[in-house]
């Protein structure tokens, strides 16, 4: 291999583009994980092994009734509004509007916390236990994983807002771009969970 040499400097856009690709690749793994959960849900629902997807009532135990999918869609709606707020923040940083960046980031952070609390409440108030049929197992799997996702979103949004507040995104804004990619995926993954839980 023949080589020549040249001096080396990295522009922030180059660093940003690299980081963006890295996050997208990690999201590929997360997407595979989420799609696998959907596969599990629909596989067990279609198989309905021993009629235990939603067990009927017995002398000792009542029948398991599926929950409304409304809480799942509500979490999705909260995350979607959070995404819009983050879009607003992103637009702000692109236009060098620090106030808009801070405000959008703060609203996104608050909505991620609201989504987290709401998701926790959905899990804690479910009227069945882990082992009462395949539906309940899948319900807990999907909602707990969504809870973990939203918890990560809270961490990221908190860091993002704090750094915005400290004025760290004045020179370049690729961090905010990347956080936006995460928010998009968070909203889509919540939507996938709500979609699955609508088919009981």
């Amino acid at each position, binding site marked *: 291999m023949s080589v020549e040499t040249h001096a080396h400097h990295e522009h922030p856009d180059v660093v940003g583009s*690299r980081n963006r690709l890295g996050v997208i690749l990690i999201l590929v*793994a997360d997407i*595979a994980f989420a799609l696998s959960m959907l596969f599990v849900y629909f596989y067990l629902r279609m198989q309905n092994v021993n009629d235990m997807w939603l067990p009927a009532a017995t002398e000792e135990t009542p029948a398991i009734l599926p929950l409304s999918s409304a809480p799942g869609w509500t979490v999705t709606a909260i995350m979607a509004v959070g995404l819009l707020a983050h879009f607003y923040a992103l637009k702000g940083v692109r236009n060098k509007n620090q106030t808009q960046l801070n405000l959008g980031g703060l609203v996104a952070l608050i909505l991620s916390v609201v989504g987290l609390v709401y998701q926790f409440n959905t899990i804690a108030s479910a009227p069945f236990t882990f*082992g*009462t049929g395949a539906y309940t197992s899948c319900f807990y799997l999907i909602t707990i994983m969504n809870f973990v996702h939203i918890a990560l979103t809270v*961490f990221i949004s908190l*860091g993002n807002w704090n750094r915005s507040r400290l004025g760290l995104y004045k020179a370049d804004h690729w961090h905010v771009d990347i956080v936006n990619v995460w928010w998009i995926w968070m909203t889509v993954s919540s939507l996938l969970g709500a979609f699955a839980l609508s088919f009981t």
Partner: protein
Amino acid sequence: MTTLTNRPTSAHKKALIERLNIFTALALGVISAFVVWRLALQFLPQDAETSPFFNREDKITLLSMIAWFVGFMTGIGALIAPFRWLTGKDLSHDENMFYAGKDMGVKRYFRYTTDHKVVGIQYLVMTMFIFFIGGTLAMLIRTNLGNPEGGWIHPQAYNSIVGTHGIVMIVATIIMVTGPFGNFIMPIMIGARDMAFPRLNALSFWLIVAAAVPLLWGQFLGGISTGWTAYNPLASQAPLGMDGYIMFICIFAISTMVAGANITTTVIRMRAKGMTWNRTPIFIYGTVASVALALPAFPVFFLSQVMSGMDRALGTGFYDAAHGGSGWLYENLFWIMGHPEVYVILIPAVAALMEMAPVFSRNPLFSFNVAVLGIAGISGLSVLVWAHHMYMAGWAPLLNAPFMLTTELISIPTGMLFLVLVGTLWRGRLWVTVPMASIFALLWNFMIGGITGIYLSDVPADAFLHGSMYVTAHFHYTLMGAGLTGAIASLVYWFPKMTGRMLDKKLSWISFWMVQIGFNIAFMGMFAVGLAGQPRRVEGYAAIFNRGNLITTAGAYLIMAGMLVLLHAVISSWRNGVKAPMNPWQAKTLEWSVANPIPLENFDVLPTVTSDAYGYGKAKS
């Protein structure tokens, strides 16, 4: 070690990142696990009478293992950068240099060091250690099988040894090329100063260290009695050691995903100026194909183990038919990962040998485009073949034919790689070194592994052969005969660049012949008893299989002796070997253009590439 230069040193007070190392990690991990174990014992309620076996104990065990993991990663310093990001106090230049291991000597190998060369060496040592453990377990298995009635190992312990050997060797073979050489060599080969995400690079390594402890821990809690596949519902009824397996896989899967994103980004975004895809060395293609394949495959494995853990600890019923679950669900999730994983292991090893073939034949790589197509074809088809592991499970008999077709189709791109190797050697001026001999060994071993695989892909033949020692011999011919052969050749080839010393020539030749002869004796014997009907994973067998098993055991001892010779060669050469010149093989890829020892950031000025790496046999080449 010096304190960070931008900090006041008058008080001689070390910064937090200077204090953290493997010892603080171990201490914090153990303390965290112990505290959580005690708290869980105290506060977790007793199970109801209807709860499955082990439920509370599983909760306690898994919580303690999670606490170990969090404690260890905190103690090694993995969480510092994320929390510094959160608080807006990014790492300074000096702190980044400290993380990179600048002027830190041997201590950097015991820290959360980000320099890709340090991570590569860490991976190399860890891989050798894992092979040592897995090999020792293999020798226990073979020694026990020297006698038809079984031997001196308790059947339950034997089962656990077989399962642990399996998973340990699978992990070792997954990391054996992309870990040491993908980290140390690859960035230099593409003309980069480091990986795209150096901290993620360190993270991927230390995650594996963190994962190893639960697996070891599990050995004292009943072990892994299910075989390495950990099929459910068998796994949900297994002893507490199974929780160690679950934690191990979950953490290892995260490591693989992180490494996959890092390596792929590095190659796509950081290749030297002028290194177009046509000028990118074939080893890079192999490495990227391997990690890119792992990226979507391992999350599925991760999920399968999360659900396994939930079944055991929380009483969910994903795999329990009595609760509406299905064992076939586990088999599908497992093999959706499990078959691509075979190629995650094989592709980089074969690509490394394709990288060496032009160097030692002084010929250009024969048909670069066919090589790339072959790698892409194998990667693409490998995700469409998983159910050939389930022909006899009764899952979906109508799908047997299409899966048979896709499995047999994969022999076409595999044949392309053979063609490239043979074409490169054809009429070359062969320089017979261990890497060159390894290419011939791979062609022989992989041919046997591949052809026997075609029989197993055929549904009627598989009806007879599945679950027998024939299957065990087949996959050892591919993973060990081809994969490990490629990895050892890589070690010999890149050892001078990684250590600055030449690997002892005489000892490496002795090791090569002992391992290859021993390997063929061992696994030909295994083919014979498998064809005669001996099932795999058994502790005792009928007396008619005795001769074949004795031959296999004798071959295994020869392999062990050969591997010990190699280990001795590595240690003695590393310490006192002949100093290596900058380019001992007169190769043309970029890693041979940097001096020994390699500077911290590899290149003073980044190179510009003006031709491909395979211009051998041409004027002035």
